[in-house]
């Protein structure tokens, strides 16, 4: 117990130190200067991430569940391979493809981010469910749960650690890819980064990049914390 809190404290201290270093490096006056821009693009960035992640969860988890059902057993692996191939397409290409089909703006950006986040969620939902010990499922069925109850009360709760792992991968990918949305005309922290590259504006570039990285870390931490506290109680880690 104490050890866990100790670790958390250490992590928080390290993060604070890093943050201070970053702020020092970028310079307080730069941050002050770009404060309004930063706030606006951060919000836009969060919007892209939130919508595309929620959509990916809403589609990915059910697909993962479906693939893990016994009647899919034979086809599931082939589907997963298909998904894996899909995942080798770089995010930029997905973005370009999305642009070609849907045009410019938030919609295509969200669609591209959704596609990029989908695979880790599907794969980890599927793997997580497959890794639930057969004995647990047998016990659940044997004491009289319906297949639906087995899924909701036993399989999913015990697949959470792996499933959340997938969410974290997807989230990192998503937050990291979102700046590219600038290229197809959607607002994000990329709107700080890309112009800064063009204008060779080092502090602004740094600010955009640091904000993106920090956002990724924060969201990851939040997801992990939420999962540990609310979803993974009792599960060994």
């Amino acid at each position, binding site marked *: 117990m104490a050890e866990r809190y100790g670790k958390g404290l250490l992590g928080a201290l390290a993060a604070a130190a890093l943050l201070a270093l970053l702020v020092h490096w970028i310079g307080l006056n730069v941050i002050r200067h770009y404060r309004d821009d930063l706030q606006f693009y951060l919000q836009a960035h969060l919007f892209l991430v939130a919508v595309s992640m929620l959509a990916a969860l809403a589609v990915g988890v059910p697909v993962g569940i479906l693939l893990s059902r016994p009647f899919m057993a034979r086809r599931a692996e082939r589907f997963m391979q298909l998904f894996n191939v899909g995942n080798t397409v770089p995010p930029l290409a997905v973005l370009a493809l999305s642009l070609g089909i849907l045009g410019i703006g938030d919609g295509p950006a969200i669609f591209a981010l959704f596609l990029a986040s989908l695979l880790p969620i599907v794969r980890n939902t599927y793997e997580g469910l497959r890794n639930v010990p057969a004995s647990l499922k047998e*016990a659940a069925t044997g*004491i009289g749960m319906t297949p639906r109850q087995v899924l909701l009360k036993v399989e999913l709760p015990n697949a959470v650690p792996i499933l959340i792992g997938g969410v974290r991968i997807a989230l990192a990918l998503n937050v990291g890819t979102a700046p590219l949305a600038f290229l197809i005309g959607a607002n994000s922290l990329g709107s700080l980064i890309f112009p800064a590259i063009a204008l060779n504006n080092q502090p602004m570039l740094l600010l955009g990049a640091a904000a993106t990285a920090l956002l990724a870390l924060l969201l990851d931490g939040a997801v992990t914390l939420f999962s540990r506290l609310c979803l993974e109680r009792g599960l060994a880690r």
Partner: protein
Amino acid sequence: MIELDRLSKTFKQKNGKDVTAVDAVSLTVNEGEICVFLGPSGCGKTTTLKMINRLIPPSSGRVLINGEDTADLDAVTLRRRIGYVIQQIGLFPNMTIEENITVVPRLLGWDRKACHARALELMNMVQLEPRHYLKRYPRELSGGQQQRIGVIRALAADAPLLLMDEPFGAVDPINRDAIQNEFFQMQRALNKTVIMVSHDIDEALKLGDKIAVFRGGRLIQFDHPDTLLAHPADEFVSQFVGQDSTLKRLLLIRAEDAADDAPSIAPDTPVEQALEAMEEQDRRYVVVTDAERKALGYVKRRDLRRQQGACGQFLQPFKVTAAHDENLRILLSRMYEFNSSWLPVLGADGLFLGEVTQESIADYLSSGRSRGKTSIVSPAANAGAPAA
């Protein structure tokens, strides 16, 4: 009561060959009895058990519970009426102990208060302090504690029938013994009908009212444990029960069964008459009982020699006695402990039932008698019985 009627299961294998895992097994387990499925690995015990709650659909044959064919019941409804303990314990790691125990009651729609009360009651039954454990998660418990929880989870909804697949496999021998005793007392108190899989002959003898010995999917013998030991159906069964089967039988035979019909005399019997009777029967002592046949003590032939009057004045109290429901293993141990060649067997209210001697035990064991279906006793019932 549960009845298996020519229950069979044939698995189709990948290479197209069929494997008959269970071959026309028929048996009946009466209400309140423990039936143990015994046999080597792969002989079809688990398959048979799982066909009862339809985790495995039978290829042919029927399962009747209280005369009702279970094939007519919805599988989920059926399972909620049957407690099930799987070999791997199978507690749900994502649920607290309380949630685990009350899974089935909650499925059945019990309200929260009733569930909590039930959890408390069951925890007390297995001597686990509810306050310490109910809010914990399974991984925070020891293997033995988890196993106990697994068993009471199966009892939670008060299902009259219990299926258990090697429920005590995962505990060390010392704990296993304690849990077995605990379980046995619980089963007797709640009058559950139990079918239990085991590959441990000692466990089967200890807990079973009936033992079903399987081999290669067939039921070879289905009998009372003592009958199984005394009359193994074939070479396979006799090998399986082991070379010391006679010693094992000691555990299963009660004092009253092995007691001889030794004579007794009244306290006012004249000494000469008593001496004469002992002389005639070549006895060195005789038990003295009152008019209601309550045992008072005994008199020795040596003490009566050349004496006058009633036997009562030479009465000696018993050094040790045997209760009627104690098993022979306890009695033999006591006889050696007190260096006594005989023990008076006393009934519940002190009635004299006869004597257990080395000869009477040997006679019983070699007589080919066995208790058969009646007067079931398990040594667990006497665990911790006070020495007389």
